[in-house]
C-alpha cells in the first residue's frame, strides 16, 4: 500500500540531517538494505543541501519535502521543492563537477550523486521561482 507524508521546513542547515533521517525512517517499510537506505539518505541530503545553500544563499526560505513509499513495489519517491532563486542553466548544473561557487569549496557533485544513487532523477527549475527535484528509488535486494 502506498503511504506518503509532506513537510515544510526552513532552509536551515540542521534540517539536512532531519530530512534524510525522516525519509530513511519512512522508507523502512520497503525493506531496504543498509547500503540502499544510505544511498537514499545521501541523495536526499544533496537535494536539501542545494535548497539551503543555492536556492536561498542570503536568506532563510522554505523547503518542502514530499515522500511516498510503496511497500508492494518497494519504490520510494522523494520530492524536494524550494521557492528560491532557481537554476539559470540546468544543463550546466547537471554536469559533474560544475559549480557556481568554487571559491566556497563546492564540489559540484550534488546532482551527479543523486543520479548515481537513485533509479531516476528529474529537475525542473525557473529563475526567481524555485527548483523541484524528484527522485525515485526501488529497493531490489532481498
Amino acid at each position, binding site marked *: 500500500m502506498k503511504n506518503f507524508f509532506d513537510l515544510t521546513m526552513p532552509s536551515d*542547515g*540542521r534540517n*539536512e*540531517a532531519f530530512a*534524510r533521517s525522516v525519509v530513511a525512517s519512512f522508507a523502512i517499510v520497503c525493506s531496504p538494505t*543498509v*547500503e540502499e537506505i*544510505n*544511498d537514499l*539518505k*545521501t541523495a536526499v*541530503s*544533496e537535494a536539501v*543541501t542545494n535548497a*539551503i*545553500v543555492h536556492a536561498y544563499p542570503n536568506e532563510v526560505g522554505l523547503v518542502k519535502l514530499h515522500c511516498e513509499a510503496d511497500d508492494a513495489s518497494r519504490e520510494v519517491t522523494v520530492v524536494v521543492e524550494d521557492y528560491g532563486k532557481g537554476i539559470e542553466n540546468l544543463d550546466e548544473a547537471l554536469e559533474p563537477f560544475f559549480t557556481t561557487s568554487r571559491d*566556497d*569549496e*563546492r*564540489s*559540484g*557533485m*550534488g546532482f*551527479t*550523486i543523486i543520479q*548515481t*544513487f537513485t533509479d531516476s532523477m528529474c529537475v525542473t527549475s525557473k529563475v526567481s521561482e524555485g527548483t523541484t527535484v524528484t527522485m525515485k528509488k526501488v529497493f531490489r535486494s532481498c
Partner: protein
Amino acid sequence: MELEFKIVGSDILVKLKGDIDEFGVRAIRADIDRLIEKYNLKSMTLDMQKVTFVDSTGLGFLLGRYNKLRAKRAELLLKNVPPQADKVFRTSGIYSFVPIVE
C-alpha cells in the same frame, strides 16, 4: 561535528566524529585550518572511523583542505573510511588526490 588530533612523527592525525555535511563542516573547518597553519607537517591524516555520514559538501570540504595542504607541499590522507562515505568518494574519484592509508 567534533575532532581530536595528535601529532605522529611528521603527520597530524585528526579523528573526526559526526556527519560531514553542510552543517557539520561549518563547525570544524576553521579548527582544521588552524591545525594546518600551526603545525607545518608533511601530511594530515583524517581518521573517519566515527564519521556517520558524508555528502558532496564533505567532498568540497576535503578538496578545500587538500588545496591548502598542497600549497604547503603537504598531503591529505584518509583512514578508516566507512562504507557510506566510501561510495560517495568513489563516485567522485577523490581517491586519486586524497588516498587511503592503513
